């Protein structure tokens, strides 16, 4: 293979790009962290009442998820594996995530106090967002490399933000809609989320299993 790549550098680039593009497309649409893996449902229901809050939450989660998947990869690869401590990965990943969330909160409080006020309790709650820990664990399970881990985390976060923003936009419209009394409030939100998950199943055919 190295011989072929050496003679055809563009083909190597092509292979390189498709592999990483596949991870991003796969995590955003096909294996969406919320709608097909059902991780991170609490902020998905909790922060989706207003579009602007949803965007802020998406941004914060994107930052935390990307950073935490990179650093949990580093911790796993260079700290846990050399000492044969793989069984400690859950607790050390939680440590990593908590530290990054704390750091993010400090930075947001300094740079954008209004966003800090709007996100409120949901910002520290990213620590317990199962999507963050889930992505870190999936990275080790699939034995991703450094760039793969970073892209997997980033793609998942983009998928999370996309779904959260779409859902928030729908809920804003639903607030004005004439919903039957029995379905008002969270009930119609649950049904909407279910329908969204059904719609996202349509993306499954996007990538052929090879």
């Amino acid at each position, binding site marked *: 293979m190295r011989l072929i790549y050496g003679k055809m550098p563009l083909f190597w680039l092509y292979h390189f790009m498709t592999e990483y593009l596949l991870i991003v497309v796969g995590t955003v649409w096909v294996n969406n962290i919320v709608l097909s893996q059902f991780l991170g449902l609490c902020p998905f229901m909790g922060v989706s009442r207003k579009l602007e809050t949803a965007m802020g939450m998406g941004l914060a989660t994107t930052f935390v998820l990307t950073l935490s998947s990179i650093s949990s990869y580093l911790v796993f690869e260079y700290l846990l594996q050399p000492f044969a401590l793989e069984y400690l990965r859950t607790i050390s990943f939680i440590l990593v995530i908590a*530290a990054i969330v704390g*750091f993010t909160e*400090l930075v947001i409080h300094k740079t954008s106090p209004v966003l800090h006020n709007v996100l409120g309790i949901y910002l520290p709650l990213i620590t317990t967002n199962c999507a963050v820990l889930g992505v870190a664990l999936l990275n080790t399970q699939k034995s991703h490399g450094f760039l793969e881990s970073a892209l997997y985390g980033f793609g998942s976060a983009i998928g999370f933000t996309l779904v959260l923003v779409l859902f928030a936009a729908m809920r804003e419209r639903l607030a004005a809609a004439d919903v039957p009394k029995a379905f008002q409030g969270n009930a119609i939100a649950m049904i909407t989320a279910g329908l969204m998950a059904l719609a996202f199943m349509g993306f499954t055919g996007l990538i052929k299993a090879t």
Partner: protein
Amino acid sequence: MIAAILVLTGLALLFGLILGYASVRFKVEGDPIADKIDSLLPQTQCGQCGYPGCRPYAEALAKGEAPINLCPPGGETTMLALADLLDVEPLELDEEANKQPEVPEVAFIIEEDCIGCTLCIQACPVDAIVGSAKHIHTVIESECTGCKLCLPPCPVDCIIMKPLKISPNNWKWKPPHSIEKDYPVIPSSTESELEESV
């Protein structure tokens, strides 16, 4: 076993150091939201919102304890800017706050009755009252904002509100009428019909 303890302790120590550094580096001084609100307020310190000045009102707003529609000097512009900053729904201006006297008024001390208790001096947000203990006080007309905050503390009720005499020194252009007031978008007849149908 020892390796596990060391690894976890080291990890916790490292993150603790990073967070400790970050909390010093990104330290927030005071209340940044109150600062932002304070810069939007007109800084007349008139006290018509019920707080002793613009800064206390800004702090109450930042805590979410006060509605955004209490500032008459700022009017609708300030209220909309506050609604935008705090991400809340715009409110109608408070009726009491919105009610402007026809003619601007200033406080006036009936000097025969004044006992020189200095209570009104302490109440005045703009330091428009001069006088000292057991001496007659008086109001500096050009400094008075007409906020009426000096009226309640006076024990002998010797402060009254007087219409401000318009002189070449304090005359101002009348503010232009808003278009909506002169030409309503919905004619009054259809508006009442709409209300009936609802």
